[in-house]
């Protein structure tokens, strides 16, 4: 009697909150949690059909891995609190021997589709749109009535269009031939890989060589739809390749810009350039660790401090290097080469002793994770976009510095004619130090950027030193514009070849190209004209 009363009160309360009354079917929940893959799948379909908010809550909890079992009971656990999945009653205290419900990819896929289906009728337009987008690749035939219902009441154009293509994927194997043809035409307007997969399915052949699909007209419609989709996908690919080329080019540019000053303008073959990049990356790491331990709420902004720190750290190391070693070796390239190579080994070992031989982890700030979806098959990652703009900013700043400031004037003067510059009162020695510090600092900035996409370890610089020299030599010594063209050009060449022949061969091919190019044109793409070359 008491139990019945409680049930009635519970039911009344539920009705008051204007939700459907029926408690979840215990048998369905049981299948969802304890059944095998197929049973779980059917249980999800059943729960979606019920449309009960409690079913939604259970599925959401399952997707978030918050569902546990204690014996035969199914619990939705949230921290220390738990409720019974079937009745919704609070469970306290928590049973001790709980097991997680394992969610595999198949289940996760069906869960996300089911949850998206629940959201198709949400009041917010953005929620509906994202739900429709999510369903695009994972809807199954059981959801067709639901999608039709949503289409019936949907006003928004974008959501409608998404829903229509989902309906098309589901009606591809409908009984009515006209419905099928319309669905195929709808799919032909899509640019997602999923549409291609579905259309390809219609053109499948049996091992004997005959088509599985018997209807001639359906096949030809699928064929032309497939061509259209392929066309659009190919465009996406080209855009992706273009972006990859620009991205690699921007990284090469950052790595080589500092070298363009020290080698290009000053003529110092600095083999420790890569290690200056590494110093910048480690400076970023130190700043990141400081933010994590002391200012976790500001963690996303650590790069704002990381950038100047990387610049200053690398510039200081570079200036110390110049004062202590390189200034005695101006005009003696072979000695400089050996001395700086030795220094690079010392720097690597020093970092190894301080930070350990293992790579350190530099985490991206949240705004640099993920990417923007440009086309259905092209996602541009934020960290690479930010680096492209960063490289452009550094380039512009450096161009202004060299052309508009007094230091820039001095640097150019010393580069063109050291003796004459000294005669008119330029402190050439000090300018050397400042210019070397500037080149090193830019290497540090490159390290800061590289820490966002690659590994940070003591050997970081080694993999960039060859690339940097390649860019500077190819671009032409003493020319900023040449460096830019060479970096972007090499980035594209590398990516084009890579998509065509694989990463290993691409590297080799680029090196061979440079060897041949330097034979033909030793002065690089752009050469300083006139007497300045001999200076």
């Amino acid at each position: 009697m008491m139990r019945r009363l409680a049930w009635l009160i519970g039911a009344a309360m539920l009705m008051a909150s204007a939700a459907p009354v029926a408690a979840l079917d215990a048998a369905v929940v049981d299948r969802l949690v304890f059944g095998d893959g197929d049973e779980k799948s059917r249980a999800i379909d059943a729960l979606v059909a019920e449309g009960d908010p409690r079913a939604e809550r259970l599925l959401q909890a399952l997707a978030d891995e918050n569902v546990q079992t204690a014996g035969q009971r199914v619990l939705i656990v949230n921290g220390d609190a738990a409720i019974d999945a079937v009745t919704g009653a609070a469970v306290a205290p928590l049973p001790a021997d709980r097991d997680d419900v394992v969610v595999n990819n198949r289940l996760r896929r069906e869960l996300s589709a089911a949850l998206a289906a629940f959201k198709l009728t949400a009041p917010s337009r953005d929620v509906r749109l994202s739900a429709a987008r999510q369903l695009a690749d994972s809807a199954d035939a059981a959801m067709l009535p639901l999608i039709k219902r949503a289409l019936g009441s949907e006003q928004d154009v974008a959501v409608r269009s998404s829903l229509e293509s989902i309906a098309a994927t589901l009606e591809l194997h409908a009984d009515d031939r006209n419905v099928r043809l319309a669905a195929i035409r709808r799919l032909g307007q899509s640019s997602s890989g999923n549409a291609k997969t579905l259309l390809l399915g219609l053109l499948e052949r049996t091992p004997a060589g005959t088509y599985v699909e018997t209807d001639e007209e359906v096949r030809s419609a699928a064929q032309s739809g497939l061509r259209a989709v392929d066309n659009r996908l190919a465009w996406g690919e080209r855009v992706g390749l273009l972006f990859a080329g620009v991205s690699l080019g921007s990284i090469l540019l950052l790595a080589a810009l500092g070298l363009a000053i020290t080698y290009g303008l000053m003529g110092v073959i600095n083999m420790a350039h890569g290690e200056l990049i590494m110093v910048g990356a480690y400076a970023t790491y130190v700043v990141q660790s400081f933010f994590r331990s002391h200012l976790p709420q500001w963690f996303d902004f650590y790069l704002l401090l990381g950038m100047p720190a990387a610049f200053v750290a690398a510039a200081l190391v570079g200036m110390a290097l110049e004062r202590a070693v390189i200034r005695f070796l101006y005009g003696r390239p072979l000695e400089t080469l050996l001395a700086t190579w030795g220094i690079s080994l010392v720097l690597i070992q020093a970092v190894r002793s301080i930070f350990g031989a293992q790579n350190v982890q530099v985490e991206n700030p949240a705004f640099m994770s993920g990417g923007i979806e440009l086309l259905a098959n092209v996602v541009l990652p934020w960290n690479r976009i930010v680096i492209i703009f960063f490289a452009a900013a550094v380039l512009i700043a450096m161009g202004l510095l060299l052309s508009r400031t007094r230091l820039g004037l001095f640097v150019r003067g010393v580069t063109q004619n050291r003796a004459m510059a000294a005669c008119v009162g330029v402190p050439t020695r000090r300018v050397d130090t400042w210019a070397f510090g500037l080149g090193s600092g830019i290497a540090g900035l490159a390290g800061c950027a590289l820490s966002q996409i690659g590994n940070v370890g003591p050997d970081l610089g080694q993999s960039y030193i060859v690339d940097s020299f390649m860019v500077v030599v190819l671009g032409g010594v003493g020319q900023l514009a040449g460096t830019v063209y060479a970096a972007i050009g090499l980035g594209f060449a590398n990516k084009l070849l890579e998509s065509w022949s694989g990463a290993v061969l691409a590297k080799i091919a680029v090196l061979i190209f440079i060897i041949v190019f330097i034979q033909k044109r030793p002065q690089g793409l752009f050469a300083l004209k006139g007497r300045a070359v001999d200076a």
Partner: protein
Amino acid sequence: MDRRGFIKSLKNLLGPAIAAMLAASVTQASAADKVVKVGVLHSLSGTMAISETVLKDVALMTFDEINAKGGVMGYKIEPVVVDPASNWPLFAEKARQLLTQDKVAAVFGCWTSVSRKSVLPVFEELNGLLFYPVQYEGEELSKNVFYTGAAPNQQAIPAVEYLMSKEGGGAKRFFLLGTDYVYPRTTNKILRAFLHSKGVDDKDIAEVYTPFSHTDYQTIVGNIKQFAAGGKTAVISTINGDSNVPFYKELGNQGLKATDVPVVAFSVGEEELRGVDTKPLVGHLAAWNYFMSLKNASNDDFKKEWAAYAKAKKLSSADKPLTNDPMEATYIGIHMWKQAVEKAHSFDVDKVIVAMAGQQFKAPSGFVAEMDSKNHHLHKPVFIGEVKSDGQFSVVWKTKGPIRAQPWSPFIPGNDKKKDEPEGKSKV
């Protein structure tokens, strides 16, 4: 003539009898102070340091554990740790140093197959003993090596079978992605033959390699997407070392989800995922013979011991101690070596090799690992796990019990004639 060359020519002249006598004198020499030296040969720097450093630590932990319980036959273990720095020729040099200068009784080490191939001639020439703790491509059987990791039929083949099953997503196309060296190339050769036997055509298999320490995976992830548009696709990754971090970062950033294109990796475990943001990676797979998340008493002990050791030695991982499959394999290998020495009553390599056959050890995987009586490989269970948001794996598939290794894969032509036992094993 230098000393090394001299010893070598002496050996060639007088034959193995002298070598055996030398080995015997080594044993006697160390018997005096009751200490036995063993070598640890793992890269502590360079591209493989991400994976190998913890193996050095877990080996030292196991030595401490054995020493605390009275050592091996009363001998205290004295480890000799060297760093071959991810440099393959250096592995051979360091191995020679361990065997000739330090005169170690056994060596625990190597991760990449190229490093193992590099030290193999040294161990065979000097009749040393190597315990190799990592899954590998098979196609090798040496009497001087015990393989405590998985052979292809204990890892790669079950993983691909799972991907093809309905539960695993029913993959029809396969993108084989690896680092460019012997392990990925051989594994992919075996997998290609296996896929052919399952009716998968060459047009549905792509094979792509990158150099060691590769960091730019933009194009490759783009290619995977493009390839996946042709049908239900799975990626099989044999990427090794620190390249895994940028690869998984790029996967996450480009929004390639496991529910669309699952990636199953054979060299990515708990340790490699440390520091990677695993939220976008949920559902990607790994196949191993052990996962940290396994629930059983021996695993609890193993994890507790490791956590305590990491804390006591102030390892950088102490605030988040992780265990993984090669660590378990190292742990099993050292214990089995100890048992074999005690059974043989000798540190002599030939005697220990004979005594290793049939050794059993209750492994942290929860099963009893058994050294095969013939082929120097362990009988191990296979688990397939999916990455969870906390960087651990949840087991979605497992074998009923340990399965026997097939070092000579039946999917490579000509292997059916090869003997399932190393050549030149003495029958003491």
